[in-house]
């Protein structure tokens, strides 16, 4: 359990490197977790070659949701949008380095859901994006 709150997670929660908004941006998407009201917005800048040149997240929520957003953003800068679309549940769990029960998994995956909905240009972020 103390694992669940590994120092790296607490650190990313308290001192995130990528919290904020990008203006202008090429892609922006936001969504909530209806179970707990966590909210994440992600802004992306995309270069001519389809690579994510900069990214930020904003919002509020528990340590798991906010730390996973920060780690996720860190991991996608410099990646192509096509690679971003291929990210899945395992990618996020690998970043967090922990195992999660079904409820907290939703907290951890909110940022990925928002990111992929944005990458695909969807109107709504569905759970199937992170399965």
């Amino acid at each position, binding site marked *: 359990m103390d694992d669940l709150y590994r120092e790296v997670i607490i650190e990313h929660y308290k001192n995130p490197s990528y919290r904020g908004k990008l203006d202008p941006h090429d892609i922006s998407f936001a969504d909530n977790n209806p179970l707990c009201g966590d909210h994440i917005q992600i802004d992306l800048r995309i270069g001519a070659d389809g690579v994510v040149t900069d990214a930020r997240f904003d919002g509020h*929520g*528990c340590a798991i*949701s906010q730390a996973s957003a920060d780690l996720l953003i860190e991991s996608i800068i410099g990646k192509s949008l096509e690679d971003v679309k291929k990210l899945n549940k395992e990618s996020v769990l690998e970043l967090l380095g922990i195992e999660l029960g079904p409820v907290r998994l939703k907290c951890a995956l909110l940022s990925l859901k928002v990111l992929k909905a944005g990458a695909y240009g969807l109107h709504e972020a569905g759970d199937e994006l992170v399965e």
Partner: protein
Amino acid sequence: MTLNLTEIRKDFPILDRELRAGVWLTYLDSTATSQKPLAVIQAMDDFYRKFNANIHRGVHTLAEESTAMYEGARERIAKFINAASARQVIYTRNTTESINLVAYSWARANLKQGDLVILTEMEHHSNLVPWHMLQAERGIELDFIPVTEEGLLDLEIYKTLLDRRPKLVSFTHMSNVLGTINPAAEIIRLAHEAGALALVDGAQSAPHLQVDVQALDADFFAFSAHKMCGPTGIGVLYGKAALLESMPPFLGGGDMIKEVKLRSFRANTLPHKFEAGTPAIAEAIGFGAAVDYLTNLGMDNIAAHEHEITEYALERLEEIPGVKVFGPSADKKGGVASFTLEGIHPHDVAQILDQSGIAVRAGHHCAQPLHEKFGIPATSRASFYLYNTKDEVDLLVNGIYKVKEMFS
């Protein structure tokens, strides 16, 4: 009479559960659902072992026995809330369905575009959404009794809302987030003076307070078994007899009819008119056992015990730096302590407490508008029932210090 907690805790087998090696359950989530005493578990087990048969119209022994048990439970539940007659006690699935029954049957027969329904800002979603749906369908109007900073209903504004001649005032007897016990009798008296009916959401009050629907003069009173030591899947809508008589049926099917022709039907008498299909028979019997259990302990004794625990909990929680408890002081509320811990999300609080076996709830507790009012997305909520002890409050407080340490 003070409750004997050592004996009471023996009645609830789950309270002994070792969740993980060396970690025992501290259950502080009874506002979501209460634990069940052996008497209830055994009553349902006994029913399935010895009596199980469908109710009504059966001639064989089992059918007669199960019908008597199902209807006997209704009579004890009626007595528990001091209903004048058991025919005024309609079995439903839960409080939510009870409120929906009123919204579908009474409201659709009686409300038209522009009619006003008054709710409050502290309602559970179950007493908001059925009215939102009716608003979309019928164009009724909704207005809300505001909640003060202290967490009480603003009755002065309520009185001005009544000048607009509402048709219905529907409100919670006790808030599931703030714990506030609302002055139901006064709210109902004022509603009646203005010509409105009153529906009371008693999901949180029936488990904790002596409820007397006749003294309250409630037109409708809705509550659920599972929050008061009974099983899930069964609740009650109490209504005044003349009102229930005048209302059209809710769901159609077996049991709710007196006579069916190929092209028509005649509705059954109360309470069966509102009970279509095979009901939750074992659950009704379990509900009967639950009210017997509560009656034996005495609702006044239960309320006094919970008051003592709540007062102690508020005192201990408020001494923790960074903790903010929402809602009024202990004398105006039931056993609920919703709180925030500065800088730490309620989900994290609940998760870390769970590691010490402490079960609290985190989120908006199905009262999102109320949380918006207080400008917070979520709270952690510890709630107390007849089986909780001061030692458990101490475990909670120690747990919160542990959370703070982890995030420091």
